[in-house]
């Protein structure tokens, strides 16, 4: 009898140990993100922004009394690799949530994995409309970046105010380039019907030699140009366009979306940047709109040990922030509860309040736009004045 009691007690103790440990177990978040190859330009700082948020929240005691653990994996900017990493994160690392992916190929692919496994997936960067299109939407996918409709329309709002009617476009021939250009053209024609699209160039994704495209476009004599050539590719494109006198020919009536105005891009080009064009960016350390933003930039600057910190870190940061706020609101780490908590959730981010819409799981994430100028305070051009274009009016 005695022995039996002891055994039962022992068994109970053994069972209780993992249960007690469970409360201490960290909440695991898996992040498939490109950390090598050209997309790593943004993937790497975005992952660091997420990590900074995690460290800050853990220093304050974590969420629901548990620590947060971020497991980052290199998705290489490749949809298949991102899917493989996401599966492994779920099956082997037992992550509770997914926050990540960058390209418009990766996002929708990982969304399918999230749906299968019923795990909340927050996409902080992919812009393709298809990610949250009605036929692809499911309860577990959310996007906190701008989408192609919002970005294209924001640019159209700006170009509509220019004294031009002959407009040309140049974009990479894949999902993001096509979708954002379509949104731009349709919205521009709507707000300014006198506009004529005189030329459209479609180099392949990652094109290195833009000379033939620029020549062909200049031959059509546009008065303004819309480009969605992004990141390091914009550096290549604009260097070649500048050498051919393209920016002078259109009198700097040029708008580069795809973050052509981000500090990363202007910094890497310095005085070679086609100063005077319009660009956009997710963030800019010099924006300093609110005390919260200033404080965020100061913390980020310290964290990245960079005087002019990345504009992409904010995407990883707010992605994690949305997740954590939803966990708090749901008071649970159950994906079904957290996904419900995310619907219509408004949070206070370093760039201001952001809301995830209930109908399409899309945050009202606008971007900063501005004309680039040389400012003696910085060794590279900045957007000035820089304005946050709120897309809420034209999201539908």
């Amino acid at each position, binding site marked *: 009898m005695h022995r039996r009691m002891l055994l039962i007690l022992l068994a109970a103790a053994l069972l209780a140990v993992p249960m007690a440990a469970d409360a201490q177990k960290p909440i695991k978040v898996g992040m498939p993100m490109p950390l*090598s*190859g050209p997309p790593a*330009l943004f993937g790497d700082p975005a992952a660091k922004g997420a990590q900074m948020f995690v460290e800050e929240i853990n220093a304050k005691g974590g969420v629901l009394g548990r620590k947060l653990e971020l497991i980052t994996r290199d998705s290489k900017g490749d949809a298949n690799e991102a899917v493989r990493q996401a599966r492994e994160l779920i099956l082997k690392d037992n992550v509770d949530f997914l926050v990540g992916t960058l390209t418009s190929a990766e996002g929708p692919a990982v969304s399918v994995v999230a749906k299968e496994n019923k795990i909340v997936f927050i996409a902080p960067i992919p812009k393709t409309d298809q990610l949250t299109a009605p036929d692809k939407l499911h309860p577990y996918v959310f996007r906190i970046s701008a989408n192609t409709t919002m970005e294209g329309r924001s640019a159209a709002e700006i170009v509509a105010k220019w004294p031009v009617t002959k407009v040309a476009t140049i974009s990479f*021939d894949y999902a993001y380039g096509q979708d954002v250009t379509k949104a731009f053209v349709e919205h521009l024609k709507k707000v300014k019907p006198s506009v004529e699209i005189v030329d459209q160039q479609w180099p392949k994704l990652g094109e*290195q030699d833009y*000379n*033939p495209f620029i020549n062909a476009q200049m031959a059509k004599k546009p008065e303004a140009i819309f480009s969605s050539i992004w990141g390091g590719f914009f*550096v290549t494109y604009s260097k070649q366009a500048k050498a*051919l006198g393209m920016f002078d020919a259109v009198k700097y009536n040029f708008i580069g979306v795809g973050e052509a105005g981000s500090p990363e891009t202007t910094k890497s080009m310095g005085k070679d940047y086609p100063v005077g064009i319009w660009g956009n960016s997710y963030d800019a350390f010099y924006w300093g709109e609110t005390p919260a933003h200033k404080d965020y930039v100061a913390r980020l600057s310290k964290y990245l040990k960079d005087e002019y910190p990345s504009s992409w870190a904010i995407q990883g940061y707010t992605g994690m922030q949305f997740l954590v706020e939803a966990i708090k609101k749901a008071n649970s780490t159950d994906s079904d509860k957290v996904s419900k908590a995310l619907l219509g959730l408004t949070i206070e981010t370093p760039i201001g309040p952001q809301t995830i819409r209930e109908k399409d799981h899309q945050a009202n994430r606008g971007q900063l736009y501005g004309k680039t100028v040389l400012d003696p305070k910085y060794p590279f051009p900045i957007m000035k004045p820089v304005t946050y274009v709120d897309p809420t009016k034209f999201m539908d």
Partner: protein
Amino acid sequence: MPDPSFVFAQSVSGLTAAMFLFLIASGLSLIFGVLRVLNFAHGTFYMLGAYSAYQFVQWIGVSGGMFWVAALGAAGVIALLGGVVERLLFRHLYGKEELYQLLFTYALVLILSDAARMIWGTQQKSVSRPPELTGAFSLFGATIPHYNLFILLLGPAIALSVWFVLQRTRVGRFIRAAALDRETLGALGVNVDALYTWVFVIASFLGGLGGALISPMRATTPGMDTEIIVEAFVVVVIGGLGSFWGTFLGALIYGQVLSFGILFFPRFSIFAVFALMAGVLIVRPWGLLGRPLK
């Protein structure tokens, strides 16, 4: 009918692209022609050339002729790296199965590009054009940047000098002989090992120089190595693997097809290039100026 000045501008930009491709592809072709190794890592040498040029420019700037010092310095560093890689690693590949060669050179791509990432990070790097060549001039209504003109002149100059070395000098004769029959050449008392190293050094120099000279026209980013190697392969396949003038011709054709392709099939110009390669492979599998392998 398109505007003649536009046609002219298009052919010039095609030619400029061709000269760069030739710089890269000639090294690839040289290594294959003599050493019989398909060096996948050649594109990585090109990328490292661009990064080294960026590094030199960080130290010495681009003005006062320093750009040229940086470009030659970068090419020199890559030549040296090529020599070391050949001596220590490539040496063991000669005469091995193609599969081993491919696996090895591919591993080298991964190792070297990771090393580049550790040194220079993932952010794009940009090099300014040398101030003496920042301008542009107008010819037949087309704008031609001075730097592009320089590249247009440099390409043929390099082609002729390499040709001269190969055809008219003693070393060139040995190199050609080594391509045909390595054993006999060795039996005749020529130090074939040293010769191979030199070929590799020259090829790496050309690759590194290509990367350094392209840095003012493009962003230097991780991944630029694998992009260029595909293009360089297309060029050498069209021209004939191992054939020097074939590579030149292949590059010219590639540049023009790409340039004019966008006129006729705006969204399929890259397809035109691959269609051309497929056509060449069907009709003349050894390339336009290559020799059929026995």
